[in-house]
Structures are given as C-alpha cells and as structure tokens.
C-alpha cells in the first residue's frame, strides 16, 4: 500500500502546486492588467476612500470634500459653484472631470509622485493619504467684480497680473453649478450633463480660453501694429492714404471703416490715429504691405497657434498659416479666419504692459500637502519676449490714447491712465457681433491686464458697440483691482 500512497501523495502535492502557481499568476503577474480592466470597479472605489484635497481661493475653500454616509465616503461640495465653475471644472464619480479637478487630479487625490513618500507611509500605517490642497491665484473680490460686471451677457472676462502672470479673475457665462454633477447618483449626473450639453448657449465651455473662439476684430490691430513697429520699417507716425473705401483684391467686396467714412481728417492717416480711432482701411493697407508672414510671426510670438496650459489647457488661438492677398487684408483687422480667446488677447496686452515680455499665465498659487508642507509653489516665469521694450512703450502710449481720446472712451477712469483697445468682430454676414475690450491700468505701472469678450452681440445683434458693452465691463474690473 505504501507505494500507492506515495504516488497519491505526489499527485496531491502536484495539485496544490498548481494552486500555488495559479494564485501567484493572478495576484502578482496578471494583477496590473486585471486592475486596469474597465470592468473592475474596485479600482474606482479605492479612489473614493481618499479625502480629496480642497481648492482654495484666498485661503477659503471653493471646492472641498465632506464625509458622506454612503459607500463613496466623501461628497464634493462647491461653495459658490457657478461663479468658479470655469476654474474648478466638475468632478463626477465615474463620468470624468474637467477644470482644475481634472488638471491637478493627481495632487487633489493624493496620488501624485510628489506625494509618494506619503503613500508609502500610509501603506505602513494602513491609511489612505489625503489629497493636497490647491491654492489658486484668483482674487475673490476681483472674480466677483468681473462676474457682476459681465451681468447677463454671454461671454468671458479674464484678469491677469502682467508682472507675474497670476490670473486674478476668470469668469465665463453662461455657467453651471458643479454641485449638480457631483451628486452620487450616476443617472442623475448623466441627465444633468446631457441637458447642459444640449443647451445652445454652451454653459460647459470656459470661454476665457476654450470653446468656439471668436474673431478678435479690431483688437487684433494691436498685433499688426506691433508687427509693423517690430519690423523696424514703420513708426507710429507712418502714414497711409486716408480712403473711405478700399476694394478688396480679387473680389467685389469693399473694406470700410467703422465710421463709414475716412479715418479722421486729412489725406493720410498715421498708424497711431488708425489705432486710436480703430479704422479698418489703414490697417488693411498696412497688413497688405507687411504681408501675412510677418503678421503670422508676430502673432505666433504673442502665443497664437499655440495651446498653453495654465494648468487648464487652452484652445489655440488662430492666425492662418497661409493667406492670399484679400485674406491678408481681412486678417489685418482681425477678421477672416483669425480667432482668439480672451486669454490670448490678454497675453497681447500683457506683452505691451510688461515691456514686451509675456509672463506665463498661471492659475495655481501653490499646492500644499495635508500637513501643510508646500509641494509646489508658483514662481513667475517668462513665457516669451514678444516685442522689444521700445515697441511695448510705443504701443502702450497708443493704447492710452485710444482710451483717453479715442473710441475706447468708456474705459476711462478718473485720475488713472488706462490703456485699452476695443474690437467689434463680425461673425457671419447677418450674425450678431462679438464685442471685445482689452486693456491695462495704470499704464505707467500696470497692476492688471483685462480682456473681455461679449458674444452674441450682447443681445443687440449688430447694433451693440464695443465701447458701450465690453469697455465698461473692463473698466469695472480695472477699478476693482485699483481700489484694493
């Protein structure tokens, strides 16, 4: 019997070895791919057990996680949800995130590489780490002022400190309440999301830097003027024939000034006057002379055709890479297929306000771990030198004139030199205009750069004016900053 017993024992041992091997394969060798399988809900649930870090503005949480009674353990709460929605984005259980919730997800959920030692520590103590806190550069007073100033218009306001690049306000309307998407009922979240998505006014877009961009209209003249000055072949006083009509080459269309007549009096008109009175014809002539390549180079220097990360990812503003003669003309006053975001136009103003250097725009002041040690701190960084110091100071003066004696008069503030430029951009032939304003103040020592776009004509179709609608909005934001 013993011989048989030995054989049977060997068989049993082999059976158990098979089990040792199979469990090792599953728990060690195949573990990563099993965890990554989309049908594995355990990985998702594990992320819920960490207390997500808060998003702070001036030390106060605008997004934070509170203990909840259900299986997801924490509920994300947004105080003043709609005001900050473009910045925070939304956080859903399993339908994705946007905004800072998405861009800094690894820090907020405590899984970033910088928090690796925290994770090791928690492995030993058996606790899940808390997420880090993200402090934003947003100033709540200015954010509120921008929100109030934009009122019921559809559009966006962005305010940036030109010396550091810190974004002080980021408002986009219409907006949504992220609290509705943070509920722990996936079906309700999907319904709400679909409603928001189907809304023709597009509340989910952060219009300061994304979505369907608008043509910048006359604000783009800043880029063309800068290109001219930078080329060394023009000055602010370079003159052009002062026509009241300019036929567009290769077509039967006519380029006209906004005044429908000439640009001021005289047979010729300088670049300075053309900018001050925001005339299209002189710029069309200038643009033709410069050629699209020069304008393209200058536009790229300002950040066109480039997506930047603030850390929200911007949609590229567009200056087309190849243009023919008529299109070059149209692009010179910000039409044709030129598109810009308020962030981009603010960066143009930032260059002018900061001696030609654009500081990298940035939303995040610092990231702090749960025990208050800083993980990341924001230091101002140069994005690019777009124009020379000389060009910048010339352009700044031109913009000051545009406000003090030009068509951007509603941006004037008593006792302060305000630099600004308005823009009225045509969309389709009968479509409402996009109304723009960009500027900074005080011109001699700029504290803030602002860019405003009001879409949909401000509700007035083609009858709203950029001096009437976006310029006062910009002024109110500048006042809010200056009164601090």
């Amino acid at each position, binding site marked *: *019997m*013993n*011989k*048989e*017993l030995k054989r*049977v*024992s060997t068989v*049993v*041992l082999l*059976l*158990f070895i*098979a*089990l*040792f091997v*199979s*469990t*090792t*394969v*599953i*728990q*060690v060798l*195949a*573990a*990563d791919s*099993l*965890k990554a*399988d989309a*049908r*594995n*809900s*355990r*990985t998702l*649930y*594990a992320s819920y057990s960490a207390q997500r870090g808060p998003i702070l503005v001036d030390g106060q949480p605008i997004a934070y996680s509170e203990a909840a009674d259900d299986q997801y353990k924490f509920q994300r709460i947004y105080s003043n949800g709609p005001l900050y929605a473009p910045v925070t984005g939304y956080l859903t259980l399993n339908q994705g995130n946007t905004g800072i919730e998405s861009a800094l997800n690894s820090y907020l959920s405590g899984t970033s590489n910088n928090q690796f030692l925290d994770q090791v520590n928690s492995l030993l103590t*058996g606790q899940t780490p808390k997420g880090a806190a993200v402090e934003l550069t947003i100033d709540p007073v200015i954010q509120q002022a921008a929100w109030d100033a934009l009122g019921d218009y559809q559009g966006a306001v962005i305010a940036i400190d030109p010396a550091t690049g810190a974004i002080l306000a980021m408002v986009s309307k219409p907006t949504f309440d992220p609290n509705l998407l943070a509920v722990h009922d996936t079906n309700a979240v999907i319904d709400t999301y679909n409603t928001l998505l189907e809304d023709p006014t597009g509340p989910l877009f952060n219009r300061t830097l994304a979505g369907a961009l608008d043509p910048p209209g006359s604000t783009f003249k800043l880029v063309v003027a800068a290109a001219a000055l930078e080329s060394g072949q023009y000055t602010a006083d370079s003159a052009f024939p002062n026509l009241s009509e300019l036929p567009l080459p290769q077509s039967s269309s006519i380029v006209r000034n906004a005044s429908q007549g000439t640009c001021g009096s005289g047979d010729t008109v300088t670049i300075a006057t053309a900018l001050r009175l925001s005339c299209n014809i002189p710029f069309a002539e200038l643009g033709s002379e410069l050629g699209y390549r020069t304008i393209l180079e200058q536009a790229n220097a300002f950040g066109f055709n480039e997506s930047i990360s603030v850390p929200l990812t911007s949609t590229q503003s567009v200056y087309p890479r190849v243009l023919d003669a008529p299109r070059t003309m149209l692009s010179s006053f910000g039409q044709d297929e030129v598109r810009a975001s308020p962030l981009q136009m603010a960066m143009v103003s930032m260059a002018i306000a900061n001696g030609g250097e654009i500081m990298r725009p940035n939303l995040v002041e610092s990231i702090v771990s749960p025990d208050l040690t800083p993980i990341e701190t924001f230091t101002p960084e140069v994005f690019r030198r777009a124009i020379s110091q000389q060009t910048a100071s010339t352009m700044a003066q031109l913009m000051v004139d545009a406000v003090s004696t030009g068509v951007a008069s509603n941006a004037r503030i008593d006792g302060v030199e305000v630099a600004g430029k308005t823009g009225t951009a045509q969309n389709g032939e009968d479509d409402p205009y996009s109304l723009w304003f960009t500027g900074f103040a005080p011109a001699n020592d700029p504290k803030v750069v602002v860019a405003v776009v009001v879409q949909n004509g401000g509700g007035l179709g083609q009858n709203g004016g950029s001096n009437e609608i976006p310029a006062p909005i910009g002024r109110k934001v500048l006042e809010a900053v200056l009164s601090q």
Partner: protein
Amino acid sequence: MPASPDLTATQANPVSTFTSSIRLKLRVPARLRNLELVLLVLAIGIDLGAIALVQLGVSGELEFGVLSLMGALGVLLLGMHVALRLVAPDADALILPIITVLNGLGIAMIYRLDLGDGASGWDSAGIRQMVWTAIAVVLAIAVLVVIRNHRVLQRYRYVAMLSGIVLLILPMLPLIGTVKNGARLWVEIGPFSFQPGELGKVALAVFFAGYLVTARDSLSMVGRRILGMQFPRARDLGPILVVFAASMLVLIFQRDLGTALLYFGLFLVMLYVATGRSSWIVLGLTLFVVGAFVASRLLSYVGGRVDAWLDAFNPEIYDARGGSYQLVQGLFGFADGGILGTGLGRGSPGITPLAESDYIVSALGEELGLIGIFAILGLYLLFVSRGFRIGFAGQDDFGRLLGVGLAFVIALQVFVVIGGVTRVIPLTGLTTPFLAAGGSSLVANWIIAALLLRLSDTVRNQPLLVVEPDSRPGVNA
C-alpha cells in the same frame, strides 16, 4: 510511565539467552495534547484577531457582541480539546488547530461580508456560520466519544452504504427537496436547510474503505485479463460499482457535477490504493474525460461553464446569464489584493456575487493577499498530510484506507474549488471545506476531522516495537 520490564536472562538459563538478548523496550508515545493546547490557544487568538481586524477595518471600532460569540466558540473548542484528552489522548496535535484557524477565518470573512451588506442577527450568514460551527464541533465531539475504535465502522460498512445512498436521494423527494441555483441538492425542514450530499461523502468513504479492504485480494488478483488489464469478477466488484454508478446518476440528475467529480475521484483513489492496480487509474481517467466531454456537449450549463473557463474576459460571455461575470469579479478581487492584500474590512469583496460561499477564497485573497492565500493553502496541505500520515503509519488496512480516503476527499475538494476560482479548471459549485458558508459542509468536514483524529489516536496508541541489540558485557554477539 510504566516501568521498562527487564527481561534480562539469568546466568543460569542459556536457552533464554537468545531471546533475552533482545531487550524490548516499550515506548509510550509522547503526550501531544499539550502541544495541541498551545496551538489551539494560538489558533483561537488568530480567530479573535481576525474578527477584531474586520471590525476595525470596516468601522474603526470594536464590537464586543460578535467578539464574545467567537470567544464562546473558542471555549467550545477548548471543550473539544478536553474531550480529546479524555477519549483520544494520542490523536494528532495539528488537526484541531488547523481547522480552528480555517473555520475562524471563514467566519471572519463571512462576517465582514455581512457588515458590507448591512445584515445582522439571524439574517447574517456570519452568525449562522458560527452556530453551525458550534453544532459541527458538538457532533465531532460526539463522533469521538461514540466511536472508540474505528474498526467498528468496518462492521457497519453496509449501513454506511445505505445511509449514503439515502442521503443522496433525499433532495429528490418531493416534499422536502428543493432546487437552489439550478441544482437539486438541498433539503429544507422548516427554517433549516442542509445538503445531505455533504454527509453522503463521509458515509460512502466509510463504505468504500470497508468493502475494498475485505475484497481487495479478490479484486486485485482474481479475475480475467482483457486488453492486458486485470478485471475482477463481477461478484467482487459488482456491489461497489453499483453503488458508485447509482451515486453518479443521482448526482447528475441533481445537476451537481462537482460532487459527482468528488465521488469519482474518491472512488478511483481508494480503489488504486487498495488494489495497487494503476490500470484502474488509466481506465477511470479515460472514462472521466469521455464523460466530461459528453457532458459539456449535452448539458448546456456545463458547456457554459467550460466557455466561461476558457474565455472568461470575452464581453459576451461576461454579460451572459450564467456567464463569467462572477468568475471575473472574483479574479478582480484577487488582483486588487495583490501580495499583501487590502487588509480585513478594507477591500470590496462584496462586489463578487455569492462571495460568502462559492467565492470565499476570492474574498480572502482580496483582503489577505497572496500571503494569506499561501497560508490557507499551506494549512490545507498540512491537514491533508496529517491524514496521509495515518495512511503511511497505520497498522490496519481499513484505518489506513479510510484515513487516506478522507484526506484525499478534502484535498480534491480544495483543488476543485480553488482551481475553479483561479481558472485552473472550470467552476463546479463545490464549497471550500471549513471556509465557505454552509452548515452541512461544516458538519461533514468536522466529522471527517473527528474521524481522522480517532484514526490518528489509534495509530499512535499502538506501541512502537524498538529492538535493540544486546549490550551486556560478556555476551557473545
């Protein structure tokens, strides 16, 4: 300790010099019960610790109600230890601690799943499992006390056979038999339900062992040669084949192929060990493979199980009714555990359906990790090896065969269940001994353990003859 009888011959009797030159020393086996006590206390400590960890892991605080229930079970187990001291003082010291740990881990995990579901009181499977454990331990003590010598069972082998068949047929009876999960295995009397098939395996093991021992000579030597293999006479093999075939048919009609596989394996191994003919194994395995193939073609749910085994991650099979969803979720649970496990109460084992019974091993794998699974497999292997030891060291063939049979049944069951859950073989629906929720399974396995303890007691009880060469000075070797 009895004195060593000294049979030294006197100088005056030369005839007895030879016999007296053999000095017999009767050696009494060492007392193992103290070792068992130490290990048992350790095991009970592990069980209490597991429950405490589950409570801390799930809610962060201890709840003394359940802990004291476990403590009461611990006292009962110490009672069994006392019973062993009285009626089986030389029994194996490792068996009781091993099954205490396994049973306790099972209870802790089932309790953890209850906490995840929010069940309590009589609804909670964990409390029921504890009650069934208590019943099983009491029955095990009863078996130990009533059966003082395992040879008694050999006399009652035909009774065992009949009771085995009756137990198997019970679920088929109209009033009390019920269908659960598509298999007709259960008997419900009032609020209690149990699976008679689990006890049936013990009865049939006793019968197989008893019959094979008495008939082994005629089985292995007498018979006709067909195809180069020795086949016994019908009258020798007949009874056993009839019983076996009847069990198989009953099981297949009850749609419980897992238990059928178990019985088949038990039969084959005991036949081989008793007769020593490896041709049986060959024949048996061939029959099994053919049968399995036919079953997978003819029986749709078997085919489904094989599909789920081979192609578990296919989305169609995953989503199908009776498809691989449960298996894949169990695998996800294992993967989430990794090497160290998520910690008791910290994973999500409840996501896998029927985690307290079929997938208790996945739940343990998720929360205790590969280390925990290795420990559990090691405990099972140790338990089986103690049973096999009876086979090796026993003196009477019936005891050896029974010990091997019972141990092998546990080993095969563990392999079939854990192999199914880890995709070594298709799933079958057997329960993991001692771990899974199920009163009948617990009772049957504790009775097996009691029988093994009784057998090991007998093995140890026979004094070992130690023959020493004569070392008296002056005697010629």
